[in-house]
């Protein structure tokens, strides 16, 4: 079932949580609403569910206006951040709750309900814990019970509020993959909220990046990462190094550091460059068009890429981070405290007013 939001606005008192949000979610897709806390993503999810009512705007499910339809009638599965499992019911009863609440005419027989519940519990691999109480389960297990409970009534839309927020890193990774897998099996339109970029990138078909009640960008994980539409998106997705300085007549300067950038259309004055950790390399000598002296502070040598923390020598910048492929790292063999030069390959300029300027390809 496709979801369409049209000019949704919502405020709480003086605080404007959502401003004029329009969004189309195609049927069967898995969409991640990504943003920092306070960006309005949870409010948007609750408006889709019908738990919150928008001040203005319309919500359509498959073209049908459901703006005024109460939550009970919307047939949405909602997984709460803290799961909200009913503590006084067993896992079995929790999952069966939605089926028991159906009007008598639609309610399946006891045996049919039992079969459906056990089928769902088998799907979330918890059939052996059916008679336990929520308090006797681990966080990951509770999460899966909450999911099974939401799916029991065959919802047309599945909504998840920070589904992995309360779990530890390892369980979280496992569940992510599992959710992706589950979605492929069931093909129910799903929307989840997260503040974790990695999670949004790994799980979703489409990412909706939000900040301060606005949508910053909608696109596939690859698009929003490689072609960020705004400074915010660039900043929010992954680690960035910010190099700020002054630009004049083809030359950017910050203390001892300089970049030679002839005729690239950058405005004069204060100019910042964003540099992703993997879009630069290190060398013992400066490049012809980039002189960025740095010192190695920390090395972490695990994995296919090696992460180096650097500090600028003779110029001003926040701690810098660079990721090198393992071969490159071995060839260079840098050591702690060693003086090196940073050679950017790809720079995103940010103008003084905070907008995105031209993208520069350097010699590297």
């Amino acid at each position, binding site marked *: 079932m496709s979801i369409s939001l049209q000019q949704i606005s919502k405020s709480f008192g003086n605080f404007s949580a959502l401003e004029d949000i329009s969004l189309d979610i195609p049927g069967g897709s898995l969409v991640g609403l990504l943003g920092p806390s306070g960006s309005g993503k949870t409010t948007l999810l609750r408006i889709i*569910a019908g*738990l919150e009512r928008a001040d203005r705007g319309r919500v359509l499910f498959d073209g049908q206006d459901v703006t005024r339809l*109460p*939550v*009970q009638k919307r*047939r*949405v*599965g*909602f997984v*709460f951040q*803290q799961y*909200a499992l*009913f*503590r*006084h*019911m067993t896992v079995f009863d929790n999952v069966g*709750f*939605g089926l*028991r*609440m*159906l009007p008598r005419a639609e309610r399946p027989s006891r045996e049919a309900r039992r079969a459906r519940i056990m089928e769902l519990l088998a799907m979330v691999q918890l059939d052996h814990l059916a008679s336990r*109480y929520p*308090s*006797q389960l681990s966080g990951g297990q509770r999460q899966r019970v909450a999911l099974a*409970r*939401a799916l*029991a*009534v065959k919802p047309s839309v599945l909504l998840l509020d920070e589904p992995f927020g309360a779990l530890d890193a390892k369980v979280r990774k496992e569940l992510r993959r599992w959710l992706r897998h589950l979605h492929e099996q069931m093909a129910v339109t799903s929307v989840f909220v997260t503040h974790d970029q990695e999670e949004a990138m790994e799980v979703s078909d489409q990412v909706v990046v939000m900040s301060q009640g606005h949508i910053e960008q909608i696109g596939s994980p690859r698009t929003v990462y490689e072609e960020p539409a705004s400074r915010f998106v660039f900043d929010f997705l992954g680690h960035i190094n910010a190099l700020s300085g002054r630009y004049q007549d083809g030359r950017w300067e910050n203390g001892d550091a300089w970049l030679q950038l002839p005729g690239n259309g950058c405005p004069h004055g204060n100019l910042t460059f964003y540099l992703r950790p993997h879009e630069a390399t290190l060398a013992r000598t400066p490049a012809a068009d980039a002189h960025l002296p740095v010192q190695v502070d920390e090395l972490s040598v695990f994995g296919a890429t090696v992460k180096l923390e650097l500090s600028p020598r003779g110029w001003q910048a926040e701690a810098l981070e660079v990721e090198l492929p393992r071969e490159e790292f071995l060839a260079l063999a840098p050591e702690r405290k060693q003086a090196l030069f940073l050679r950017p390959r790809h720079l995103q300029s940010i103008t003084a007013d905070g907008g995105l300027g031209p993208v520069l390809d350097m010699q590297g």
Partner: protein
Amino acid sequence: MTASQLFFTRHPVLPGFTLSFGLSVLFIGLVILLPLSALFLYTSDLGWQEYWSIVSNPRVVATYRITLAAAFWASLINAALGLLLAWVLVRYRFPGRRLMDSLVDLPFALPTAVAGITLSTLFASNGWLGQGFDWFGIKIAYAFPGIVIAMSFTSLPFVVRAVQPVLEDLGPEYEEAAHTLGATQGQAFRHVVLPHLRPALLTGTALAFIRSLGEFGAVIFIAGNLPFETEITSLMIFVRLQEYDYPAATAIASVVLLASLVLLFGVQWLQGRYLTRLRGG
């Protein structure tokens, strides 16, 4: 339990255990256990035959019936009203909420006799509220309904204060979860909220009931105290005391005490059983 645990030879980690434990035991002994044993000591002057004839005297038995019935109705009213009050205090934000919250404790703070006199003045057939009821031919003060009202007044805080924290703990997301699963407001309340509150509600109501069984000050002013009609057990004890019939007074008191203790332990047991289920283990 091993002997070492039983006799505290394994010293607790926190300091001050000996002193604080000693003081607690002394206090409980002096204020609670000593008077209780004195009560049973007095009672033990009586033989079983005498004891039985005192506690099964028709007039005394009538007071049991009246007290139990009034306490039952009072706790029932309090269970409903207390739940409503706790609900309003926890779930809604309105001007005067704090004032309302502190007013709930008033029955504890007010001398019960003052409450009794005030209530009887209000509900007397010529009082502000009593007039209205009198018009419909309903007698409240100096009749059975008066006892119920006095009892529910003095024991209302028990229910509110028992339910309130549990309700605060139960965030709105549980009801929301029920709603997303198709439950109506009523269904969400019946199947989700009420079961969560049940142990607290039960404890609060039971405490209110126990308190009502022993209530004296508030009731005697409004009850009218007619033997076989509006006489409560605690008044019966008082009457026997005034007749200098101490053994009889203590005998009746022991019945009240026994009933209260049995109820208290019963509630504790039920609650413990329920909590282990909620908290796991």
